[in-house]
């Protein structure tokens, strides 16, 4: 219960900050950064939050289901262009992954050496 309250509280703080300063960043992301800072200042808190946080993150897939079902509203557009859309998404995803992974790997190696 403490963990759930804290998570919602930090999300709320994040949303308020994002609104007030008109940040392009979503509230929950700011909430995450705020919670991280708090955890760094108070190590014991991580222990308390561990179990609930882990349980929530274990079921992260579930939370994308409602948005995913939204594809039903775009069936026509998707039906006509599914091949082009798939090609664009698959190629750009592969490209993005390879570029990200290789950049990080190369820089980590040169950092060490």
């Amino acid at each position, binding site marked *: 219960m403490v963990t759930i309250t804290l998570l919602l509280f930090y999300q709320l703080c994040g949303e308020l900050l994002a609104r007030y300063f008109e940040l392009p960043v979503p509230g*929950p992301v700011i909430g995450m950064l705020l919670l*991280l800072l708090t955890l760094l200042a108070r190590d014991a808190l991580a222990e308390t939050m561990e179990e609930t946080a882990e349980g*929530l993150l274990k079921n992260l897939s579930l939370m994308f289901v409602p948005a995913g079902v939204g594809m039903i509203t775009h069936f026509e557009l998707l039906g006509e262009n599914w091949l082009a859309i798939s090609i664009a*998404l698959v190629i750009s*995803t*592969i490209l993005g992954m390879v570029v990200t992974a290789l950049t990080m790997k190369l820089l980590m190696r040169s*950092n060490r050496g």
Partner: protein
Amino acid sequence: MKGEIFQLWVYLSATPLFCLTATLVAYLAAVKIHEYFGFRPIFNPVVIAVTLLVVLLSVTGMDYSTYFDGAQFIHFLLGPATVALAVPLYRQMRKLRMVFFPLMAAILTGIISGGISAVYIAELLGATTETALSFAPKSVTAPVAMGIAEAIGGLPSLTAILVVTTGVIGAIIGTRLFDLIGCNDDSVKGVAMGVTSHGIGTARAFQVSSEMGAFSGLAMALSALFTSMLLPWLLTLMDYL
């Protein structure tokens, strides 16, 4: 008898309880199927659950907004779950400090290569500018991506679908692709997963290891941050806006 069943359905379809329960049942069934096939990435739980629910909605003729009235309680959990990413991230703090610079550079190059290539390919294959622009934020977590799509003149609802599809694609091909390019560091794999496939990739990354999950979550958060700041500027540079 038939009339009674119809009456019952009228009652059920009007309460959020039905769609909420249906979503949870579909998800649990999807997890079981995923488990049954030995956790093979191709049997992605999101894909299976969405398919089951799309079939349910098509058969019953229920529209999406009625469905979402019930399912929104689950959708809402995305917020607290994003905040909760701070916990595994805190556990990886020591490693994070060590790889901070490579990580930032990797996220930036990943955003640019993934986003821009998607817009180019979509246009090359004949998409209208509006549709092509909807591709640009497809690697960012759904709520942020929709906001960005709106700001750059894409279609937010189309972007939401592209986001979920991209996440699923990344979750399915990710681990195999990393093997293929000889990448075996969980922090590197996590970052590449989070940059391209946001939360759905992160969910997959947590199955591999909590280190990969933590880095994927961080990469997802940072790429949401950077993409919302960089993308409008990049597209202007490319003469799209």
